[in-house]
Structure formats: C-alpha cells, structure tokens
C-alpha cells in the first residue's frame, strides 16, 4: 500500500485484489433486498461473499479504517455504512477520531 501521502490511501491493484470479496459484498448493497439479508444474518451474508478473516473482523468491528486496511474501497464501503444510517461526516469523524460536530467544524473552518 502506497502511504506516502499522509493519511491517504491509493486504491491500487494490490488493494483491489486484496479487497475484492469485501468490495463485492458492499457492491451488492445497491439492492434493498440484499441490505435486508445482511441485517437479518450478517455472519451468513459475509460467508456467502467469502470474506477473509481480516475482512470479517473489520466488518464486525464497524471500523472504516480497518475495512480500508482489509482492501475496502470507500465508495463501496459507503453503501455498507448507509445500512447503519451513517453518512460521510459520520465515517469521517470515526476515521479521524473526533466527534461528528468537531468534524463538521473542521470542514467549515477549511472555508475560512
């Protein structure tokens, strides 16, 4: 994983291969039926998509940084986050370890 821009992930071939199963599962969440199936039995749903142990643990932890580490791409992960009613400010706050109101304050400050 290229890490030379601090705090930034280049989703490249290595990550695209590593994260394929996890991203494929998240891609399936375009369907409401699949979102419901995940909520009904998360364990079985993850098994069906063949998540690695690392990916399964990351999903279980709900940590976006861990899911990214396991090869997740943010555009697909956002569909998973949506199942839990989380938007990009919520997951931004989680990844930067601040409250959502502090995260929003920082965004506003960037405009000044």
């Amino acid at each position, binding site marked *: 994983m290229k890490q030379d821009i601090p705090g*930034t992930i280049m989703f490249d071939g290595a990550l695209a291969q590593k994260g394929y199963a996890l991203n*494929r599962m998240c891609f399936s969440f375009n369907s409401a039926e699949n979102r419901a199936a995940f909520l009904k039995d998360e364990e079985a749903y993850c098994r069906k998509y063949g998540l690695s142990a690392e990916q399964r643990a990351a999903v279980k932890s709900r940590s976006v940084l861990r899911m990214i580490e396991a090869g997740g791409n943010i555009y697909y992960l956002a*569909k998973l986050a949506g199942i839990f009613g989380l938007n990009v400010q919520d997951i931004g706050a989680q990844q930067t370890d601040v409250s959502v109101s502090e995260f929003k304050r920082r965004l506003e400050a960037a405009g000044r």
Partner: protein
Amino acid sequence: MARIIGGVASTHVPAIGKAIAEKKQNDPYWKPFFQGFDYVHQWLAREKPDVAVVFYNDHGLNFFLDKLPTFAIGAASEYRNEDEGWGIPVSRSLKGYPELSWHLINQLVADEFDITVCQEMLVDHAVTIPMALMWPGETWPVRIVPVSINTVQHPLPSVARCFKLGQSIGRAIDSFAENLRVMIVGTGGLSHQLDGKRAGFINKEFDTLCLDKIANDPLALTRYSIHDIVAEAGAQGVELLNWVAMRGALTGKVSEVHRNYHIPISNTAAATVVLNNQAIERRKVA
C-alpha cells in the same frame, strides 16, 4: 453542423440529492450552494442546448471492480438511475442520443481512444444530480451522452490524457452533421477526501488555482500527476479529471462567465462554473 455552446462544471455530492428531495434549497446551510445555480438557469434558458455530453465518474452503480473501464461511453436511447445503496432518491431516467454517441465512438476509436461502448448503462448521482441542479423543473430538455472516467481504481488516466479525450470528443462533435446546440458537462470535485486519517481534507488554495486555470490555461492543470492531484485535492478530488475533460471538449475561444465556490457541502468544497465557447471561424476552402 453541431455547435458546442459551452460547458458547465458542477459538484455532484449525493447529499445534494437528499436536500433537493427535502426542499432545503433555502436553508442557511444549502443556500450559498443552490443560489450559485441561478445564473446557470439563466444561461441555459438563453443558450437552449439540445444535447449534453456529460463527463462523470461512476461510484459503483454501473461498474464494479470485475470490469472497470478507464473510459466508457453510453450509446443508449435511455439511461436509468437505480438504488445506489446510500439512501438518495432514485432519479427519473434520461434520454440518450445514440446517433451522436456512435458518431463520437467512431471518431474516438479512429483517433486512438479505444473506449468501452455501453448500449446499456445505469447512470449514478454523478450524472443525475448535476441534471437536477441545472434543470430543477419537471423535465430535462436535453438528451445526453454520458462519458465515464475511472476515478475509483488506480492507475487512473492522467490529467493530460483526460484533456486529450475531451479534445477528441470536441473535434468529433464539431464534425457531427446535425444542426445541434451541444453543451459539455464535467461533474464532481473540487477538493475532498472521504477515506483514511486525512478524511475531511479540503484545499481552498489549490481549488482556487484550478478555478483560475480551467478557462484560460487548462494546460497548466495537465502538468499535475495523479499523485499530485491526490496530494493537493484529496483522494476523491481526482474528480477534477471530469472538469479537465469537459474543458478539453471546448474547441473554440473559451471564457468564464460564472463561478460559485462554497465550503463545505457534505465533506466537499463545492464549485460551479459556466464557460462560454465561441466557435473559431475556420478558413473556408476556396
């Protein structure tokens, strides 16, 4: 002959779709962004485009990592939106223009852009939100040709390559025999980052530079590498590629006639520009 009348670039943040559905245009949070479209509406009413060629990036509605084209073009008579999984309302469909699509495809491949051709293509919020912003009414009075640029999986096409793609499409439109008024749309951006410990990154200084260069000195932007763009504009700020392709397609004398820039909309520095394209008279063959 078809005539390129100008270009519009617009942010396409999904939250805008929700704000429209909930009629929040005049809320203090949203107003500085939505009022940036007042001029766009006047411009469209005056310029009356027939067709919009839309450069955008798919976020996992039509394309997945199983088959991910670097450049893809729609050749359908209708483009549908569907559930994208993050709770924004599904948009109405858009009309396509297969004759123009195939003309562009033929010219692009002849010009060594070996583009993926899609007779079926779902379009996501990156197309439907700018449409809803430009035409907030009940109908969309243009047909579209969507052109998708990969901004999901590296390696991404370079800024210079996207500019050349736009130039090739611009030349192809100029040679289309029908009497059409064509506008070019580039969606997404400007600076933002959704993922990683730098999530929330916004760079007003770099955005201002991009806005200053896009009309009059786009070649300055093509000198940046993708790595530079990620560093300066954030991981998802690479959507600038759609803006650069749009600018490339403006083949005449280009001038900026409108600009709006507002931080933040969701996690993003939101920007809207309108560029006029004045056709350069070609020397008549004696």
